[in-house]
């Protein structure tokens, strides 16, 4: 199409329509649409209902896998857990992810501070009445120097890791009050009081579940439950729902990138190791591309080159005898 012809066509498309019209009752159409959709929604709801799996609790975790909960508590004290080594926006335990020279995660800094030692272990224990051995351990911990605390917790954490979490096989050593603190927290979790203690942190009103959710992720309980429900990211979990229900299928493209190399290989540098960041940037770019699609050469002319529009307007084309434009 020449520039002049393109301009004529654009002008024609922009002008008010002066060709044949047909009757159109917009109000009737709206009422019918709402009625039909309401009936469809009603039918699906009556026949299939909706998913609602109960949330996981610390009580459930400690009851079903006490050793894992105990070992996770020790890792929080030693500063080796996922949360403790996460970095921004929670702490300075790691550099976070990057996209080339852009360290956006690190640059925004710590905006939601989480100190795993105190927030996850010491404060919940302190805010509850504890048995004598736990109270004594707490006093010993609080009175010790930082280097001493770190030494106790790191030694015990390493010893547990060495026997792959099998607590009965951990050799005795200079672990200070750490075993008593971990046992105290495990007992608290088993009794059900840790869920509330972590949420309140000594306060009353609280609507932020960040600490509990991050703590959950440090152990295997949440991860195992996600695997069992087929929700892992590597298996399209982002767009899955619990049970046999449709999930967020509209996230298929976002989820797609996690299925292919290099994004699905965390040992691949720089992209796989920073997949979350690269995929976020990629999806941001693609979203912008969708919004600005009419400006993208090659894509904006696809509808003219692939004649699906001949099917959409086939009745009109046939009645008017309109042939496909060859220009």
């Amino acid at each position, binding site marked *: 199409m020449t520039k002049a012809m393109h301009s004529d066509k654009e002008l024609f498309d922009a002008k008010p329509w002066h060709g044949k019209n047909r009757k159109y009752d917009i109000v009737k159409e709206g009422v019918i649409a709402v009625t039909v959709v309401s009936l469809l929604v009603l039918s699906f709801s009556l026949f299939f209902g*909706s998913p*609602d799996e109960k949330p996981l609790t610390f009580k459930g975790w400690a009851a079903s896998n006490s050793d894992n909960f105990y070992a996770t508590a020790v890792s929080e004290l030693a500063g080796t857990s996922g949360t403790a080594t996460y970095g921004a926006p929670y702490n300075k335990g790691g550099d976070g992810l990057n996209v080339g020279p852009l360290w956006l995660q690190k640059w925004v800094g710590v905006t939601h501070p989480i100190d795993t030692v105190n927030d996850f272990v010491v404060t919940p224990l302190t805010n509850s009445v504890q048995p004598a051995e736990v109270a004594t351990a707490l006093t010993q911990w609080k009175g010790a120097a930082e280097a001493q605390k770190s030494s106790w917790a790191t030694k015990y954490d390493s010893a547990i890791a060495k026997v792959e979490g099998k607590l009965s096989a951990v050799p005795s050593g200079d672990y200070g009050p750490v075993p008593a603190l971990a046992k105290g927290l495990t007992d608290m979790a088993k009794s059900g009081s840790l869920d509330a203690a972590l949420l309140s942190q000594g306060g009353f009103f609280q609507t932020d579940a960040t600490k509990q959710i991050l703590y959950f992720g440090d152990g295997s309980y949440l991860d195992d439950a996600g695997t069992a429900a087929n929700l892992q990211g590597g298996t399209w979990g982002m767009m899955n729902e619990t049970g046999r229900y449709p999930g967020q299928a509209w996230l298929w493209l976002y989820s797609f990138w996690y299925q292919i190399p290099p994004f699905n290989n965390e040992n691949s540098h720089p992209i796989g190791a920073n997949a979350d960041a690269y995929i976020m940037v990629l999806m941001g770019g693609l979203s912008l591309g969708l919004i600005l699609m009419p400006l993208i050469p090659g894509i904006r002319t696809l509808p003219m080159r692939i004649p699906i529009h001949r099917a959409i307007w086939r009745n009109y084309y046939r009645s008017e005898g309109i042939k496909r434009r060859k220009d």
Partner: protein
Amino acid sequence: MSKMWTARLREGWQRNLPIEKLIPDAQPAYVASWIYVFGVLTLAAFSVIIASGLVLAFAGPAWYHTSSFGLFVNSLHFWSVQLFFVFMVIHLWGKFWMAAWRGRRMLTWVTGSVAFVASIATAFTGYLIQTNFDSQWIAFEAKDGFNSVGVGAVFTVTNLGQMLLLHVAFLPLILGVITLVHVLMVRKRGVVPPIDADESNTFENFSGALND
């Protein structure tokens, strides 16, 4: 033109979007395909989402865990969202293959696609406030993506209170306004003519004719 802001607004509205355009009783003859139904179906699903969402919002986020009627309303909300996206995606693809941005309709396309992206954000926050296992899992997994580009500092998916308010107040308001502008743009510009049509398919001196 009057110097009064109110009068200028009214005159501008009447000039650009007279009532005959806003609530038409005739459409161009080419608007005769099932693909055109999906725009209004998307709006219809949106209205069911809002209605069921209002009931859920009134009763609070944990109500549907303990009430069978609450679970039913939650189901209405859940399925209307599923249908909303099905209709909207079909509508979007239809408009792409029509090259519906032609004839100064760029803003119509932009508002429509922004509404699509805003809908994804709104639905996402809905999944985060279910206060069940699914929302625990999604919050834990999704935080990494947002944190990795620094967005997590202001959009905290693990913060139930923030997600709740975004989902029931902020995002629906934004989505509603964008959708309103989109629909008004459709009414102002009209439905895009067929790709292969040109002046020879019109009769300039016979405007507004009803042929059937």
